């Protein structure tokens, strides 16, 4: 039902109809838009995905090949080093540098200062090391969509890649959730994990204009792709 609305609106605006009709019409449109419908379609048009995913021979050294119980070949086990520098998800046109994030005085994670830059929580595990590496980025700025604007489009099976130590580490999305910030699932997001995992966090839900913040967080969960 949201599909046909846009063109219909434009078609009928041209004849410049009487003011009252316009008012009613405009109000109806505002109402529809305000309800969040069509958010997905009005979001940034898909950017051309950057060059096809170059999968290195072993995207993840610490990956866990299924089926090797204990006696896995030690080949390609050299752990990635250094800080992560970029995150990309070709399917949603995401390709952004990573800053290092810290905590404020109250212990809350401070989001990136730049709306076009995502951040990695430097106090936790790094992407590719065992544990949940947490990346956060803005949903929008005051002007429009920001770096993680399309995070909510990610679905189980999608691939997220993080650049670290001169190579891309691949993660497979396993799930996503939207949660009120005051009931943030800290244990599920930051709790220990057996292997390298990734969490991508942005905002979602309603915008609280009085506080100047969104009420919800959107969290995407991903696990390291086993080495190919």
């Amino acid at each position, binding site marked *: 039902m949201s599909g046909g609305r846009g063109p219909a609106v434009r078609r009928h605006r041209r004849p410049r109809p009487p003011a009252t009709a316009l008012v009613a019409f405009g109000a*109806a449109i505002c109402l529809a838009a305000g309800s969040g419908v069509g958010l997905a379609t009005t979001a940034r048009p898909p950017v051309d995905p950057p060059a096809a995913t170059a999968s290195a021979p072993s995207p993840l050294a610490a990956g866990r090949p299924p089926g090797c119980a204990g006696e896995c070949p030690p080949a390609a086990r050299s752990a990635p080093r250094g800080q992560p520098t970029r995150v990309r998800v070709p399917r949603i046109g995401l390709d952004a540098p990573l800053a290092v994030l810290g905590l404020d005085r109250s212990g809350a994670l401070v989001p990136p200062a730049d709306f076009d830059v995502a951040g990695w929580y430097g106090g936790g595990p790094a992407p590719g090391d065992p544990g949940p590496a947490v990346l956060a980025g803005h949903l929008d700025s005051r002007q429009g969509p920001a770096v993680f604007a399309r995070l909510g489009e990610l679905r189980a099976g999608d691939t997220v890649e993080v650049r670290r130590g001169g190579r891309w580490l691949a993660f497979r999305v396993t799930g996503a959730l939207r949660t009120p910030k005051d009931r943030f699932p800290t244990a599920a997001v930051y709790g220990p994990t057996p292997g390298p995992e990734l969490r991508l966090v942005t905002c979602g839900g309603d915008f609280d204009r009085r506080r100047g913040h969104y009420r919800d967080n959107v969290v995407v969960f991903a696990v390291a792709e086993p080495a190919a």
Partner: protein
Amino acid sequence: MHLLRTAPRRLLAGAGALLLGTGLVLAAGLLTGTATPVHAAAPAAAAGPDTGVGYVRLAHLSPDTPSVDVYLAARGAAEPRVFPGVGYGVLSDYLPLPAGRYAVAMREAGAPAGDPPVLTTEVAVVSGEAYTVAGVGRYADLGLRVLHDDLSAPDGGRAKVRVVQASVRAPVLDVACADGPTLATGVQFATTTDYRLVEPGTWRLRLSPGGGRATEAEIRLSGGAVYSLLVLDAEDGGLTTELRRDAQGGTVVPSGGVDAGAGGTAGGGARPGIAVGLAGIALLGGLVLLRRARTTW
């Protein structure tokens, strides 16, 4: 000219009414909290955090049982995952698996997949939870047990350790850190202890079988991690230990969520008052429109 003017207006009135209806329905949905505009597929928050995966690993803890092939199959799935030649003392890595029920079957190493399995069990995987499917006991009374592993974060950036007792030679065992906490006392063969909190760092362990000679071992624990200490019969007699890191987390966990948006793409719907106001205006406009349309006919 008159016709040309009225035709679009009537169309417009129709379209306006339609939009109005849609808008009102949507506003109602918004006010009752049923709309999920950003992420329609997201499960309701009340359903608990769904990370999409649970974890399963396999363990062979029966000293006199030969190697086995272990088959792990999702219910209804055609192709099981096979862990070939799992021998005594093996504790596999965890496999992240979608939540659901899985059948575990054990066959003698090298036996055809079509042979009836020696042992079978089932594990119900819940998202975010972890399980060890272990072959335990002596060969004569071998059983498969599903251990529910607690990978939750240890308090205060410490480490968490438990003992998995798989030694027949030391049927009852005490495990303690030298100059430190006791990890377990009187652990029976084929059992697993609860996790104990331990300060991170290097510890000298002392394993004392009831009446036997003590075995020493050194372990290194890092903060925020969860460990299993496997106690096994050594090939040359005595005991041997293997420290396995079950899971790793950070030591300083941020509190609460993240403020990651400035509202530039937010609709007016965030304020129910505005939504109601808009609905009122729209309704009024629609009525005026209808009246005018009737009078001009």
